[in-house]
């Protein structure tokens, strides 16, 4: 294969857009994923991505912007999760399970009743380079910049909140407000990334770059650079490879990420692997 052939996919505007969005989505998922992983919130990320499917279906039927439909739906799902889990008889994990799977089921029902929107919904489920439009590039640049600015501006507070929420509260950190802002950032990350990575696979991108970075460093200060860098690489290589193997972009990005995670896991010693095993045991403030 010549160098010219290697550059062939970049001749197409839709592929250029897909690569840009996949790369930025990988970086964004990597950055937000640091806190998702350290707070054991991957189930929330997984749930939100499923909830977004319902919003995508509604927006497709109504003919409104995906970002409006998925955004409103995502916020409603998050509020509903909070309301249901506030009742002591139902835990947060059960609330997430009920709300997000119900939302997903609504999306499936709408899809089956409206054949015209099935193509765009497949894109939401599995991610597709053809589903990326010029507006998506603009949205991910704007939203990604805002989320990155938020994370780095409040890095100390987010770290404190994640490590020790009670002491953070007594030290003057506005824990509830910061928590709400982080949930909004997480929802926004899922929504802007979902078209290229896919609702079914996005939780992998929230978890794998951060978990891989965690095995490579003992410093959260380095993790917040390393995880987005890995996510960027996974997004770019996965999207590029998807062109040649002709599989959905989300699947290829996830396969690349999982392969690198596996390689790092095998290359590191037992003590380093233990930190990944312990990621499940962290106290969850959310």
């Amino acid at each position: 294969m010549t160098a010219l052939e290697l550059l062939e996919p970049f001749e197409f505007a839709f592929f250029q857009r897909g690569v840009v969005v996949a790369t930025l989505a990988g970086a964004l998922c990597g950055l937000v994923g640091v806190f998702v992983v350290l707070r054991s919130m991957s189930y929330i990320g997984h749930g939100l991505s499923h909830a977004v499917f319902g919003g995508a279906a509604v927006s497709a039927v109504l003919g409104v912007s995906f970002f409006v439909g998925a955004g409103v739906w995502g916020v409603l799902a998050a509020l509903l999760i909070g309301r249901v889990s506030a009742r002591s008889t139902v835990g947060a994990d059960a609330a997430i399970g009920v709300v997000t799977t119900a939302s997903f089921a609504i999306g499936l029902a709408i899809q089956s009743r409206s054949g015209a929107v099935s193509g765009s919904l497949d894109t939401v489920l599995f991610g597709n380079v053809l589903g990326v439009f010029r507006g998506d590039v603009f949205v991910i640049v704007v939203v990604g910049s805002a989320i990155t600015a938020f994370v780095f501006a409040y890095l100390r507070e987010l770290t404190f909140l994640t490590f020790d929420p009670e002491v953070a509260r007594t030290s003057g950190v506005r824990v509830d407000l910061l928590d709400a802002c982080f949930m909004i950032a997480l929802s926004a990350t899922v929504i802007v990334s979902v078209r290229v990575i896919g609702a079914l696979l996005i939780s992998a991108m929230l978890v794998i770059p951060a978990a891989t970075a965690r095995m490579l460093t003992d410093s959260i200060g380095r993790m917040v650079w390393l995880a987005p860098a890995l996510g960027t690489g996974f997004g770019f290589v996965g999207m590029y490879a998807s062109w040649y193997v002709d599989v959905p972009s989300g699947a290829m990005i996830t396969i690349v990420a999982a392969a690198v995670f596996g390689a790092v896991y095998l290359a590191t010693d037992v003590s380093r692997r233990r930190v990944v095993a312990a990621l499940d045991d962290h106290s969850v403030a959310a």
Partner: protein
Amino acid sequence: MGSREPLVVFEHVGCSYGSTNVVDDVGFRLDRSDFAGIVGPSGSGKTTVLKALLGIVEPSYGSVHRCSDVRIGYVPQLETIDWTFPVTVFDVVAMTVARPRFGRLARSERRRIGDVLDRIGLDGLHERHITELSGGQQQRVFLARALAREPELLVLDEPASGVDVATRHEILHELADLHRSGLAIVLTTHDINGLAAHLPRIICLNRTVVADGPPEQVLHPYVLERTYGAPMEVLQHGGMPVVLEHRGHGPHIARRPGRSA
């Protein structure tokens, strides 16, 4: 603000989780000169009282008055810490120190944090991950984090829990030095003989305050039975009270009568 003004006053405080009352009608005050230990059995509400003091738990009735602008340093139970979290000793202390948005910690603040760590015996360990420390050093990291806020009142939840005898002595001496330097201290502990009996003031708690005073007054069989719900004996050894638990045929030294609330 007068120096005689109490730092914290609990007035008829009750706290509940849902419909379950954890503490009822708790009343005491903490002054600037205090070095007090709250003792009580499992479920007695020790940790809840500390959380109400810190403002983490809101009383369901009564009130907790904190002296205006009082700076409180809090050292949580080490068992609640996630030791695999990716932070170094320096990072833990630096979390409490504000910095400019997008900016690095000021050089003067870095120096101040370094001084706090060195003063507390963690010199040379600043860049170590927190799991690479001994039990005593780990306790000191969180003590340093609390001290970095330059508190007037230091609050510790079970500082002697899960540490060996030598470390417990270290902690006790460290706290005694801090108290001598003018810091008010309140802590919870299960360890009556190893820790509480060495403090100038003990508050016995069993959902409400059973007794409050110096060890020689409070460590009394009647008070301890009301606090722990089991008969206990108090002996004098080397001028110190030693509490013995009755179990079956003979008395046992009451080191850990229960677990935390």
